[in-house]
């Protein structure tokens, strides 16, 4: 137990890297124009990082193969939107439903927490029957639940709450965090830092959870359910908790996605979205929080930015590169993903975390000295 409190330089380096990232985000945001693609990628990347880490908590650390992430994101996004649309705009947004049912607006942070709680509540109810199922049955049942949730939110009888199949808009977005002066000019850009902060706090909470006794029980369940049960771990209780916590953060992730997109519609939260997040987790390494974060930024950057040139005609001298046209980006992208899935099953990080990288470096240095 004493060794635990020992000063760990690798942890310090890791913390330093994280602080540097935040500082870099803050500074670039003040310097570069706000319309730069970089910020789109960073905002969406932070959102996806949170959702990917929440999925990793289930798939990578508890060994529950759940495909319901899009459903929980939908609940989070809708809860956030429903509670934060300014009262003055409600008549406009809920134009077919007479201004809607909810006639108050919450500040952003309580609404985010509400979004998480709503998703966790649904997860609790869904988990009661579903978590007794085994591996792939669980996957398909959670996928089914996500579809059911999507249908319920589009039902026009609930329109007073969810606006039926119409879009929700006018709620606070990331851009509303920029500090403006009296003339409406932006004096301090915060619209990228804020998603980083929200995602950072949530991911830090998840990491703390993973490293707690509870997290160790989850890993035991992942390694061998029967052995874990024999060691006195209540399987159902732990799975249920893990499922609810993961959904809580997926809900917050959904709310962040709503903030990023500035409009939301239930029909966008399809199983394809869950698959995307699953692929992010796989590319990053199942069982690595750091990997999920890195790969979500890479994934978003590739799909939104770096591979864009593949969608347009390119000339090298007088030679027109063949095959390049709309949609080619996605083909290249899916082939890269297949290569990772088939040949680099460990993903970027395997099960390593940020501090491990520094540890390894230090060891090799010691070896050189010796």
């Amino acid at each position, binding site marked *: 137990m004493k060794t635990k409190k020992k000063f760990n330089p690798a942890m310090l380096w890791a913390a330093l890297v994280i602080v540097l990232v935040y500082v870099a985000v803050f500074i670039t945001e003040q310097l570069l124009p706000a319309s730069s693609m970089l910020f789109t990628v960073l905002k969406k990347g932070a959102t996806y990082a949170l959702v990917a880490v929440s999925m990793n908590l289930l798939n990578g650390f508890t060994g529950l193969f759940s495909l319901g992430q899009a459903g929980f994101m939908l609940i989070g996004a809708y809860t956030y939107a429903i509670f934060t649309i300014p009262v003055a705009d409600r008549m406009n947004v809920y134009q077919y439903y007479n201004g809607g049912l909810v006639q108050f607006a919450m500040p952003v942070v309580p609404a985010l927490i509400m979004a998480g709680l709503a998703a966790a509540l649904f997860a609790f109810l869904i988990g009661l029957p579903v978590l007794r199922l085994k591996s792939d049955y669980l996957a398909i049942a959670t996928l089914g639940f996500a579809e059911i949730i999507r249908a*319920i939110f589009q039902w026009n009888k609930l329109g007073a709450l969810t606006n039926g199949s119409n879009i929700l808009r006018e709620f606070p977005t990331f851009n509303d965090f920029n500090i403006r002066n009296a003339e409406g000019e932006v004096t301090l850009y915060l619209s990228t830092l804020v998603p980083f902060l929200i995602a950072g706090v949530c991911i830090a909470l998840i990491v703390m959870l993973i490293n707690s006794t509870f997290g160790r029980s989850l890993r035991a369940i992942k390694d061998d359910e029967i052995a874990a049960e024999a060691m006195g771990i209540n399987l159902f209780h732990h799975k249920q908790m893990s499922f609810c916590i993961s959904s809580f953060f997926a809900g917050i992730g959904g709310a962040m996605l709503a903030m990023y997109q500035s409009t939301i519609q239930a029909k966008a939260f399809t199983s394809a979205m869950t698959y995307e997040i699953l692929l992010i987790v*796989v590319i990053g390494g199942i069982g690595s929080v750091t990997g999920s974060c890195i790969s979500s930024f890479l994934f978003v950057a590739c799909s939104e930015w770096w591979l864009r040139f593949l969608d347009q005609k390119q000339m090298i001298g007088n030679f027109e590169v063949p095959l390049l046209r709309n949609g080619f980006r996605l083909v290249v992208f899916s082939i890269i993903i297949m290569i990772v*899935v088939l040949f680099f099953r460990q993903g970027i990080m395997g099960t390593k975390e940020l501090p491990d990288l520094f540890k390894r470096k230090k060891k090799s240095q010691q070896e050189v000295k010796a």
Partner: protein
Amino acid sequence: MFNTVFPYLLTGISVGGQYALIAIGYTMVYGILRLINFAHGDVFMVAGIVMVYLNASGLPLWLSVLLTLLITVVIGFAIERVAYKPLRTAPRMSIMISAIGVSYTLQNLVLYITGGLNQFYPKVSFISDSVTIFGASTKMVTLVTPILTVILVVALVQLINHTKIGMAMRAVSKDFETSQLMGIKINSVISTTFIIGSFLAAVGSMLYFTNYNTVIQTSGAMPGLKAFVAAVFGGIGSIPGAVVGAFIIGICENIIKGLDIILFKAGITKQNLGLATFSDAFTFALLIVILIVKPTGLFGEKTTDKV
């Protein structure tokens, strides 16, 4: 009452038959590899796209039908060889992720080729013709589907029960390792399974898209999921189970689509409840109920967990 319900029932039986043809592919693959082949729905969609392009190239209809079947079978075979075979010893989760990756790749490939536009499915003479039965007007395909489905299923069951390869399939699905020790060539059995599955999916796609007229890269996702639910409902690994499950799901789904009108005409409800929104959700609700009440499905075999 009958006149209101009958058209929905008819469509339901037809759609059920089409789901059945897809569901067999799922259930056979699951029976042997214990893998939910998420890409199967997309193979079904690709078959539709292949047919569209072959027909547009001016080939005679019979030839494009044959070529579609052939190309789909080759695609199914290739997917197994490229994406699943290298992962045979990997954990089950890896293979399932690979299947999701294949599904993603196929959809993006079709998006690239078609430019993301709806493709109009060619009219196949005879099965596209209109026909009227008991006062309900429908396409010939509605009548052809259940008959063709039953014929194909009977043929398949004969194949599985009375041929050498069928016997090998049954052995492999009972115990993968032991059958390998007994000298069964696992890889050829698995390939055959994928070939049969893709062939039936191609037949299913011709019937399905004749009914719905358009194909787009996401057309395969929903029918694929529903067919999988049908396979689970009937008891995964059981072919008759998959067929029965598919018909039940097809019929229920279409009745729900028309439930508003049916209830209204029967005088039970006074206004439109918008229940049609739930036609897809119902399938999954059914899935969850069956998984909780009878996880082995209607005709499934009981398995026990071994330490």
